[in-house]
């Protein structure tokens, strides 16, 4: 495959990606720590007027079907859960990235967000089957962020989707990541990792972004989380994706060292992904337009 852009051009583009809002950044920091207080989350939301409005609008949306209107942030956060609140802040703050058309992957608008939300739900559910304790909140947040590098690479890939797929089918390259590296000198996991460092995300999230397609290379202390996101990403693709790279990655079978999973449990996770996705997407779509 002929190289279309240099790694330096991609790194320059990453530097130009706007920083996350202070609220989103702080919420990601706090919710990735194991021993945090929900009050810290509530305080951050309370100090951000537009985030407060969004959180209240979502919790009172038709999708949640609450009998009584929720008017306080304390109740809204407690009802939605911290991971959802962090996800809302992140989705708002980096809306342009998550909801842009993924032209380089022949994906429509919001395809990245749809895949990320499915991955987040799947990773959260997968966390329940971990052999060691794993925070479902952290797995969810890592899932939301894991593929953010695609938003950057998409602009440089142009109309290469067919070329990459032919390369994979003919075993010229081993997977879509290798195709990205041939074309751009960098793949979406590394691009996402550089962006995550620029955003000063917690190291756990940086590692999940960087290693989600090669979890065995992650530092030992983050392997459990990274494998959860790896499996979550695969399950999300099995549930359906409208991008050219869908299913074009390898399953790392060493996940069995970290998770006890049967075929029936995978099926249950897929069921939950589809159900929760409909609810969350419907709740957030009411207000999505205003943030675009």
């Amino acid at each position, binding site marked *: 495959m002929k190289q279309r852009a240099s790694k330096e051009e991609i790194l320059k583009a990453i530097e130009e990606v706007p920083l996350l809002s202070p609220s989103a950044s702080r919420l990601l920091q706090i919710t990735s720590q194991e021993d945090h207080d929900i009050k810290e989350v509530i305080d951050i939301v309370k100090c951000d007027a537009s985030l407060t409005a969004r959180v209240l609008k979502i919790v009172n949306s038709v999708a949640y079907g609450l009998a009584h209107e929720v008017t306080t942030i304390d109740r809204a956060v407690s009802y939605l859960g911290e991971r959802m609140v962090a996800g809302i802040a992140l989705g708002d703050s980096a809306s342009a990235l998550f909801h842009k058309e993924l032209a380089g*992957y*022949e*994906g429509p608008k919001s395809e990245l967000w749809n895949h990320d939300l499915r991955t987040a739900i799947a990773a959260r559910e997968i966390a329940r089957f971990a052999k060691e304790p794993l925070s479902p909140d952290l797995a969810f947040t890592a899932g939301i962020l894991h593929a953010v590098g695609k938003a950057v690479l998409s602009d440089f890939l142009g109309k290469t*989707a*067919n070329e*990459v*797929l032919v390369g994979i089918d003919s075993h010229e390259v081993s*997977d879509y990541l290798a195709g990205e590296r041939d074309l751009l000198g960098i793949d979406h996991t590394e691009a996402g990792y550089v962006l995550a460092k620029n955003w000063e995300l917690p190291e756990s999230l940086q590692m999940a972004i960087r290693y989600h397609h090669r979890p065995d290379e992650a530092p030992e202390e983050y392997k459990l989380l990274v494998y959860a996101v790896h499996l979550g990403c*695969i399950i999300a*693709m*099995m*549930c*359906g*994706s*409208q*991008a*050219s790279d*869908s*299913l*074009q*990655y*390898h*399953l790392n*079978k060493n996940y069995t060292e970290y998770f006890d*999973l*049967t*075929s*029936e449990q*995978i*099926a*249950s996770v*897929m*069921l939950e992904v*589809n159900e929760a996705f409909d609810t969350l997407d419907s709740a957030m779509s009411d207000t999505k337009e205003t943030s675009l």
Partner: protein
Amino acid sequence: MSNLILGVGEFGASRTSGDIVKTFALGSCVAVILMCPKTRTVGMVHVALPESKINPEKVKTRPGYFADTGIPALMQQMAGMGCDPRGRGFIVKLAGGAKIMDPNNTFNIGKRNALAVKKILWKYALGPVAEDLGATYSRTVSVSVTTGEVVLSSPGRGEWKL
């Protein structure tokens, strides 16, 4: 003319000339396409999982989700539109059931979906005249009610007829 768009676990049928019956981005899910030449009705169900025993509650709200309840539900709807209730004379086509690269048995839900769908169809003495199952790509399926033509597409792979 309108598009009948079916989401995950949904089923539907049309006999209105000009309509397109469509479902997007099948991963491991399988689209079962039933065509009744006698009434010129096209039906489709977007099956996500093989067996309903995993969540009987879900069957009440979305029977199309499972192969064992989705195909009978579609048959019943088509019977209400004048088609044979046992599917006699139906033309069957199948698409989807994709897999990840190097799957193990635990993750190969697509293959289990395809087998479950065929098992249920056999109970009606039906089998597909055409199928595009397995492999490692997602599929969007469009069926023309006017011509019965089934078109598949996948990002980066273009369109092809089934």
